[in-house]
Structures are given as C-alpha cells and as structure tokens.
C-alpha cells in the first residue's frame, strides 16, 4: 500500500509537484512520513515548522498515525477569505 502526500501553495511550487506517492511502512505517523519526504525533498525542510497536517481531510497532530492507503496533506498557514 502507498501513502499519498498532497502539497499546496508555496510548498508545491518549491517541490515542483502537487502529489507524491510513498511506500507505507508499518507504524507510520505524520512525523515518520514527513521524515521520509523531507529526505527525498530537502528543499521542503524549511517549511516544516509552519505546517499543519490533515489525514483523509481531517486536521491531525504530528504524532497521529497514517494508515495504509491514506492521504496526508501538508498544509501551510492558510490565507483564504
């Protein structure tokens, strides 16, 4: 199974892509998936302190688990309205 990671706004501009598939690893959390992602895309590291996270369209905490097949969205500070 995979984990799908979605990127938006400045993050997606920096990475040059909007959607990444990573292999799921047993016990994956938001933090562990991010660690693997940042290893593959070191340019995203500087964004990490400001990010919020959503798993399957719900805000979650960095320690929360990411189930196999889930979609993890990396959410920079929002500016809608």
């Amino acid at each position, binding site marked *: 199974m995979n984990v799908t990671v979605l990127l938006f706004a400045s993050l997606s501009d920096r990475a040059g892509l909007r959607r990444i598939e990573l292999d799921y690893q047993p016990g994956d959390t938001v933090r562990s998936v991010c660690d693997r992602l940042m290893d593959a895309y070191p340019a995203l590291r500087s964004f990490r302190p400001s990010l919020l996270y959503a798993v399957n*369209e719900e805000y979650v905490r960095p320690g929360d688990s990411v189930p196999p097949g889930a979609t993890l969205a990396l959410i*920079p*500070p929002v*500016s809608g309205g």
Partner: protein
Amino acid sequence: MLIRVTSEPLDTAEAVAHVASPEAGAVNVFLGVVRDNNLGRRVDHLVYEAYDAMAEKVMREIAEEARERFGLLGCAVLHRTGRLEIGETSLLIAISSGHRAESFEGGHWLVNEIKKRVPVWKKEVWEDGEEWIEGPESLGKSQATAGQAGQ
C-alpha cells in the same frame, strides 16, 4: 446549507435566496473582495488555491457550528478559486436569523473562522513579482492563529 468551493464567479442573489425563511427578520451578507493594494503594495490580481474537498468539509463544519452558536436559520458559504481580478468576490457568506444582532455577530465569527481554518491559499501577483500569502494578513508571516487550528 449551501457550501461550495468553485472557480466560477460567486452569485450574491443565489446565496441570499438560499437563506430566505419566513421566520427570518435579518439577513447578513459578507463579500470578501480583491483589493488593489495590500500592506502598501499595489496588487495586480490574486490566485486562490484550495484543497477543494477538505475546504468544503471544513466550511461545512464551521457553518454547522455557527448555526448552533448563533441560532441561524439559513447559512451559505462559498469560496472562489483560481485567478481573481480587482473587485471580484473571493468569499461570499449569507446568513439569516430572527434578529439583527445574531446576523452581524454570526457573520463576523464565520469570516474569522474561515480565515483561520479553511485550507485555501492566496497568491498575490504584482507588476514585478508574486508571493504566496501564508497566514492571516493581520499577523503578517506569523502562524500563531493558523497553528491553533490543528492543535
């Protein structure tokens, strides 16, 4: 409730019609509009990007919460995405209630929560460059408010 994220222009009349109710004595409508300037800089246009499915979900949660808190009768929240020119409407909220106080308080609360919690981002495009605006304008680059939403 009418909740929508769309790249089409937002229609005030549709939203007002949606919240009509024989028990309503007050309707409040808020339009967030593209200004020609921000923090002293001249803006040419804006580009809005949303995490569409989640944005609608969060907008619906906020609208439900507003309905309970303020006893609203009807509620419509629409956010536009894509390229918006000066004067175009990016956010449209219409609510109805028995009396006027709830309509103003509920509308103000809704806009504030939407700006804190809904996954939408705005890129300012000037004559000589562009930048993603991240975080509420009033706090500049700080993430204090947005940070609370996920914690």
